[in-house]
């Protein structure tokens, strides 16, 4: 399988204009994400996961190392790389339907076609009946679904997701994870999914990248060989492949968290 995203020797420092000391966020990251693959990224909080995502999205300029998509250096944002942000990025002044159709609107897709696609995505994420509501009228889980649909509907080749389900309750999160799995099967998109939940990382990932404490380095890659169709929470706790992967990721993350707290 060809690599969709390639990161080589990526290092990043944030300057601090008040203290003059820079924050060393990433150190020589090397990784690849293959076409149609869903990879998860875990690591202690503050280790540079969002930094990596912002660089891949083209939102954060970088100097050291390289990040490319389809062999082309990433130098700015593009509709080819959709982002589901850590803070909910659905626009408060657009209704659910208009948020979801925003990407198509920006591409100049005609209204009729747009409405058809939007209603498909509204069904896909279970927001039927809420098309004309505004974000402040939705629950946390619904906002999150809306955010995912907003990015999906713009039809990017790559989805970059930054802890998208962190802020919702446990029940909703499980549903959203299974939904995302279905979406991954249905759309075959390349997805980079950041999380701090080990269960989530093992459940969703074809592979899981475990990062070290700051400055973030790639500590280990854990393979999770469970067919997508078999990934249902009800079966997971009896699946030795899942348990093995989860325990391994858990052990690695624990070690790194201990380092970062030391």
């Amino acid at each position, binding site marked *: 399988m060809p690599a969709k995203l390639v990161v080589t020797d990526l290092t990043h420092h944030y300057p601090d204009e008040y203290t003059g000391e820079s924050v060393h966020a990433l150190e020589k990251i090397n990784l690849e994400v293959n076409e149609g693959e869903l990879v998860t990224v875990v690591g202690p909080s503050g280790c540079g996961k969002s930094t990596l995502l912002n660089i891949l999205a083209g939102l954060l300029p970088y100097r050291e190392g390289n990040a490319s998509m389809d062999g082309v250096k990433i130098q700015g944002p593009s509709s080819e790389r959709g982002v589901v942000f850590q803070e909910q990025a659905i626009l408060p*002044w657009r209704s659910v339907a208009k948020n979801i159709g*925003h990407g198509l609107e920006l591409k100049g897709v005609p209204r009729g076609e747009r409405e058809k696609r939007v209603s498909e995505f509204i069904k896909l994420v279970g927001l039927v009946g809420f098309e004309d509501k505004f974000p402040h009228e939705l629950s946390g889980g619904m906002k999150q679904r809306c955010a995912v649909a907003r990015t999906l509907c713009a039809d990017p080749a790559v989805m970059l997701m930054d802890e998208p389900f962190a802020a919702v309750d446990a029940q909703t999160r499980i549903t959203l994870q299974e939904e995302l799995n279905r979406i991954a099967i249905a759309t075959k998109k390349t997805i980079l999914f950041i999380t701090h939940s080990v269960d989530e990382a093992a459940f969703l990932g074809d592979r899981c990248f475990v990062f070290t404490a700051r400055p973030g380095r790639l500590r280990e890659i854990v393979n999770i060989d469970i067919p997508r169709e078999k990934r249902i929470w009800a079966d997971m706790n009896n699946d030795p492949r899942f348990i093995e992967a989860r325990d391994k990721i858990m052990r690695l993350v624990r070690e790194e968290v201990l380092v970062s707290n030391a």
Partner: protein
Amino acid sequence: MNILQSISIGVQRRFGRQRLRKIFLGSIPFAVIIFAWFMNGYMGWFPPVFIPPIGEVWASFFLLQEDCPGIGAIVALDQRCLMSTHILSSLSRVILAAVIGLPAGIALGIVAGMSRPISKFLEPIGIFANSISGIAWIPLAIVWFGVGWKTTLFILLNTIFWLLFFNSMMCVRTVSRVYEQSVLTMGGSRWAVIRDVFLPGAMPSIITGIRLALGFGWRALIAAEMVGGDSGLGFMIFSSAAEFRMEEVFLGVIIISLIFLATDRYLLAPLEKWTILRWGLIWKPT
């Protein structure tokens, strides 16, 4: 059920209980003032030179309009239709200044808020211009434009534009960057970011800015008309006071307030209701 009850229920159905309550509560302070004013007529607490009787103020409205030949003359701002001419000339100046000053201030403010070079270019002159209150320009404006509508328009524009410019510029910077990034990562252009993110995102401040600008604008206009105008409500108040026609002074003040109240009620409140309140950017007190 008696007839009074059913009328009361009918009225409540028609206009809405909440709204009636709001109107009722809001009217109480006015009712108190009007009552006190009325009582002053009977009790003679203050002589009529200070506070003219309510009836005289009411009558002066019609007296000023007495010689008016008709609608055509009203529209033509004929000097015989004194009352309507004063009202319309003030009003048209405010509208003209608002139509030019509000969009220009908002647009340049947003652009300056987004772009560092442009804000570097415009911010110092903006701070400089804002430090001088609108009315301080009056003497200079009279020298430049003479007594008349040009001076009043200049004063108004100067006040409205800079207020909106500042409010919009500052508010753009409080709009969460993640919204901008979201539009950029969906292939949006700079223009799309302005239209879909910064303009609606800055709306709370823009509406506050419009409120402030119209408030300060009216005040500046009245002052400008007093000193450097030849018509308008400010001119009317000033020239009537010079001749001790207090009922006309009162009338002018009341009309200004009523126009202002109406603007807030029928322009700004609906704008607020259908934008920032609808979007949940502000909340309604309970």
